[in-house]
């Protein structure tokens, strides 16, 4: 299952004085859906372009199926890319756009038409085959771009923020189209995005990059529950991050005097903390309970409600402690009936100690 398809080995890319990618080591397996995520300028798109041969690594080696690719021209690789701008050919109709890759690979007209038709049907755009690109909606163009990239039946498909121009509903639909395609075809998808929801909804593994380096690689759940750094915890969102100093350590539990009040946290495996050590506590918003009466829990903080936000079946509450620290709690729709949700209402937030994730140091990096 986890047979490597792409290997980045110590890859460095510099543009003049600017280092876009610093010593990237990454293995992408056959058949996996990998998302590379990070803020703009983190080197995610550059990494993807190097894989497609559009930028050449300054140092290091990129291997595809065990072969060194550094010097191979883009036209001689089979690494189709779905572009952020889609880059459809405006002077060709839908079918001719899809046929382009086949034409360049020397397929005759009949074979081209058959294959193109097959893919247009698969992506449910066969009825638009003879339309101009300009006559299509955003979602339809997206499908044309996918068909054009997949028509040569590659082993790997690269996607560079392809959904960034679509509206929210369409994004959700295209996500399911993409995951379904990937499962059915069994090929590798490398998906670059700055959107956490896109990456977490589709990918088997997520790579978080920052300033040209990998911060963390893992399954979406791991990255969400156990971020390795404050940067990841903040980037992933939905998290509350409290900072404070250790006041004691006993029975595998730390007591911390945090900026929101005293709390407890489990001691991370293989780590020891002394009194006075600075730590950050990551508490994801969905493990926090909000109640009107003070519950019996090791971690209870009194807050006042600022606002609420409904997303699907969840409600996010935005609250503030008495000393001004802001906290988020995500609770089920049905639970909200039991609490007072007028603005300024007093609520108690509580969470199990086991769900607290401890990071050493208050501000490790990233200004």
């Amino acid at each position: 299952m986890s047979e490597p398809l792409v290997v980045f080995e110590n890859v460095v890319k510099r543009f003049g004085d600017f280092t876009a990618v610093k010593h990237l080591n990454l293995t992408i397996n056959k058949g996996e859906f990998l998302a590379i995520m990070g803020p703009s300028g983190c080197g995610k798109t550059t990494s993807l372009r190097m894989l497609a041969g559009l930028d050449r690594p300054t140092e290091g080696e990129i291997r595809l199926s065990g072969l060194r690719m550094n010097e191979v021209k883009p036209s001689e690789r089979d690494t189709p890319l779905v572009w952020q701008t889609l880059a459809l050919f405006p002077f060709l109709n839908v079918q001719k756009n899809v046929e382009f890759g086949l034409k360049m690979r020397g397929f005759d007209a009949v074979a081209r038409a058959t294959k193109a038709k097959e893919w247009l049907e698969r992506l449910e755009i066969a009825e638009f085959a003879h339309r101009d690109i300009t006559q299509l909606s955003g979602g339809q163009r997206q499908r044309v771009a996918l068909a054009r990239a997949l028509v040569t039946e590659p082993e790997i498909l690269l996607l560079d923020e392809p959904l960034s121009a679509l509206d929210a509903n369409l994004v959700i639909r295209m996500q399911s189209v993409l995951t379904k395609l990937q499962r059915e075809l069994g090929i590798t998808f490398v998906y670059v995005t700055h959107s956490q929801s896109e990456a977490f909804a589709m990918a088997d593994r997520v790579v978080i990059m920052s300033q040209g380096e990998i911060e963390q690689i893992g399954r979406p759940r791991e990255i969400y529950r156990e971020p390795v750094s404050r940067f990841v915890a903040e980037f992933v969102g939905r998290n509350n991050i409290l900072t404070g100093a250790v006041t004691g350590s006993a029975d595998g539990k730390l007591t911390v005097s945090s900026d929101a009040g005293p709390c407890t946290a489990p001691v991370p495996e293989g780590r020891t903390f002394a009194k006075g050590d600075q730590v950050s506590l990551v508490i994801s918003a969905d493990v926090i309970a909000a109640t009107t009466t003070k519950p019996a829990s090791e971690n209870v903080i009194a807050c006042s409600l600022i606002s609420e936000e409904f997303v699907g079946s969840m409600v996010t509450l935005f609250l503030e402690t008495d000393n001004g620290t802001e906290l988020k709690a995500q609770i089920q729709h049905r639970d909200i009936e039991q609490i007072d949700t007028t603005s300024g209402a007093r609520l108690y937030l509580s969470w199990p100690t086991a769900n607290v994730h401890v990071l050493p140091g208050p501000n490790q990096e990233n200004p």
Partner: protein
Amino acid sequence: MTADRSIVIFLRIYIGLVFCFVFAPIVASFIFSFNSDRFPTIPLGHFTLHWYQTIYNDPDIWDALQVSGITAVTVSVIATFIGFCTAYTDFRYKFFGKNAYLALALLPPTIPLVIMGLAMLAWLSRIGMSGHLYSIVIAHVVMCTPFAMAIIRLRLAQMDPSLEAAAWNLGASEWRTMGNVIVPFTLPAIVSSLCLTAAVSFDEFAVAWFVSGLNKSVPVIILEILQGQVDPQINAIGTFVFIISMTLVVTAQVLLMTRSKKAETV
């Protein structure tokens, strides 16, 4: 509201006057080309095609048309080709001295035509290439290439830069990308440039007069007729040349406009 309206009316009148000013002489020439009187006077004489018949039967005019026609077609093809290459270099590459290169490429139209004609004559006769049909072609290519380049450069600027890379990504070599993506994308500009450079070459007098020798182009022959006598056949030739040039220029403009509208929606 009333102030706005009066401004609109004023501007319309102003535009109308500008058009009158520009087109009145041409319209007059057009009308007098069908007038039987020898001198352009009012009231008009009767309608006649006599002057058109005269030029139709004049072998000198036919020779001149041939010279101008061959020159215009050859010049438009060569100038458009060079213009395309220059514009593509600008689009695709970054290199040291690029601004100087662009300035040089766009320089010729800023040189006064008489100076340009003289310089061309001096240079071409020194290397023994003056007085031929190809002398006019060389001179006109120099004059027309900047126009071709400007038109094609404008079109390339509308192109999504990832389009070219997308073609490579789909297995097209650089040459095939040129043929299958860049040229089709810029085709409206290329056709437009062919029309416009042909029109510029067809109408150009000063440089052609200096270097043409015995190969008289249409504008040169017009001047010769004028020097000899005032003859209404000038009106007839003028009308004819005007129609050819306008057709070319309007075609060029229409092509550019429809395509750029389409490109905006992509």
